[in-house]
């Protein structure tokens, strides 16, 4: 086997690191999407009022104050 063939054989370490990082980042997002209402629609990270298609981060008493 030549030197070049040796370099391309097997999975490089950087690919394994990238794959691991991607897995660590993607899995929580997928879990959140499944656990949540699904989709990536409005207000997934919003802090806005409810009644406007938003998942609000505020308690109901606060959100009902909106006109």
């Amino acid at each position, binding site marked *: 086997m030549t030197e070049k063939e040796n*370099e*391309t*054989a097997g*999975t*490089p370490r*950087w*690919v394994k690191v*990238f794959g691991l990082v991607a897995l660590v980042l993607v899995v929580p997002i997928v879990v959140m999407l499944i656990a949540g209402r699904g*989709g*990536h*629609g*409005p*207000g*997934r*990270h*919003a*802090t*806005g*009022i409810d009644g*406007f*298609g*938003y998942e609000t981060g505020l308690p109901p008493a606060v959100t009902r104050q*909106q*006109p």
Partner: protein
Amino acid sequence: MTPRVRKLALTAHVVSSVGWLGAVAAFLALAIVGLTSEDAETVRGAYLVMEPAAWLILVPLAFASLLTGLVQALDSTWGLFRHYWVLFKLLINVAATTVLLAYMATFESMASLAARPSADLDAVRNFSPVLHAALALLLLLVATTLAVYKPRGMTPYGRRKQLEQRATLRAESQR
């Protein structure tokens, strides 16, 4: 493709990809302004301008980057699935474009809220665009770095294709 057309296609890919990265950086700045500005009109204006700007700049650049990237990969010896760095760039591009398209509804919703004079300014402010723009910027920086450094590493498919090509060349030279 002739060398001249190939160079033009490469220029289009670099311009659209780096342009997309720059546009996302501008969106991050806009999102930070919307979140932190003390001026009510500036806050509302920031969220109002995001949706049309995204349709006019982000979406076209995302698709241009994806299409020119596909042309680049398929017309060169790099291929689309042969090298890990090309494959990772493709995955990043597809993921970022998909999230962007899904996020257009959020842009629309934020703009509608910002347009309502009765809506409280704290309700108009939204951390979501800061988060999304920062993550998109990170992803596109990774993609750009991969394109510049082109780290070694062939996929199993790429190695198989390479062996097939070598076998074909060997057979032809023995004739």
